């Protein structure tokens, strides 16, 4: 560097200058050095590390978001499952009830039918009995007539004739 070549190591006597508030070219040189330092550090320290931290934050954030999404999905699935389970239970209940009522209906219908049939059979049987009874009565009546006539003939002999 040309700056170095112009450096002359001059050790001055402290009597003529020095002291606490000795301003000289150190000030602007230092200011320039600091500016250069800021530029260098910005490029090799602040930018890459800030980027690394931001990337990590993004990564964590997206991971959290994804996890939340998954959790929500799982929860909605669980809810859906619950709903479906409830529906299934309800429908099975309804089916059970329907089957029961159907069975009840069929049973009562069959009972009623059987009752009606047996009733009609009873009626028929009664009518048959009545008929046979009246037939028998008629037969009996004729027989009674014949018998009574025979008895009369026997008793009275030929008086009847």
């Amino acid at each position, binding site marked *: 560097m040309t*700056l170095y070549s*112009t*450096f*002359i*190591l*001059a*050790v*001055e006597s*402290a009597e003529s*200058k*020095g*002291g*606490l*508030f*000795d*301003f*000289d*070219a*150190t*000030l*602007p*040189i*230092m*200011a320039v*050095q*600091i*500016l250069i*330092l*800021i530029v*260098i*550090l*910005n490029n*090799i*320290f*602040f930018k*890459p*590390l*800030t980027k*690394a*931290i931001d*990337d*990590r934050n993004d*990564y964590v954030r997206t991971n959290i978001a994804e996890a939340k999404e998954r959790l929500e999905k799982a929860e909605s699935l669980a809810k859906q499952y619950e709903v479906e389970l409830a529906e299934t239970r309800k429908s099975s209940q309804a089916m059970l009830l329907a089957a029961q009522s159907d069975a009840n209906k069929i049973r009562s219908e069959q009972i009623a039918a059987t009752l009606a049939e047996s009733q009609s059979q009873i009626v028929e049987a009664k009518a048959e009995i009545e008929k046979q009874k009246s037939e028998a009565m008629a037969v009996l009546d004729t027989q009674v007539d014949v018998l009574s006539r025979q008895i009369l003939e026997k008793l009275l002999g030929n008086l009847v004739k």
Partner: protein
Amino acid sequence: MINQLLSSPQFANFAALEVGKHFYWQVGNFEVHGQVLIVSWIVIGVLVLASAIATSNIQRIPVGFQNFMEYGLEFVQGIAKDQIGEKEYRPWVPFVGSLFLFIFVSNWLGALVPWKLIKIPEGELAAPTGDINTTVALALLVSAAYFYAGLSRKGLGYFSKYVQASPFLLPLWVLEDFTKPLSLSFRLFGNILADELVVGVLVLLVPLFVPLPVMILGLFTSGIQALIFSTLAASYIGEAIEGHGEEEHEHH
């Protein structure tokens, strides 16, 4: 030995010898303080090296030195964020952070490295922040930074804050622009120099153990001074960026 030292004529002007002497280099027509520049190059070298090591192999899960430097970065980010505000702080992190790191490393190297063992023709190596040139340079950079921040944000309207409250306050506002760098530079300069002097005098009087508490206190002061300087720098920048706009916003 102590008696010898005490009786030696050097001890009488020990402070003057420490403070006033500089290792002059001639650069063209100008003179510079060589001892300040040497140590500042070491400081800059340490910072650049540390940064290079920390960012040479960036990983998502930070390990070792990257972790340490990330802690440092988040610390200076915190300074900038607290003073400038969540929205605006990002572009100013390198400025505020570099100031903090430079001052902090300067102070600590000045306090921890036994510079006295390295002989230079005149004066002695010490923290660059113990030299008024360095601190004034830093403070002027801060002034330039907050003027730049204000002007780039609001253009010439930035100066309207000088007369906004009352035109009579204009001199005070102008005065403040001079006192800000003055107080910044002298606070840092005075603290570091005083700390070095106290440690130096104590080491001369009682070389063993007694200066240790003062040295530890000096390390503490050094850190605090770096923090104060960067915090104030950030707060000036934050003030320049938003103070005016917010007030106007409130009036409407």
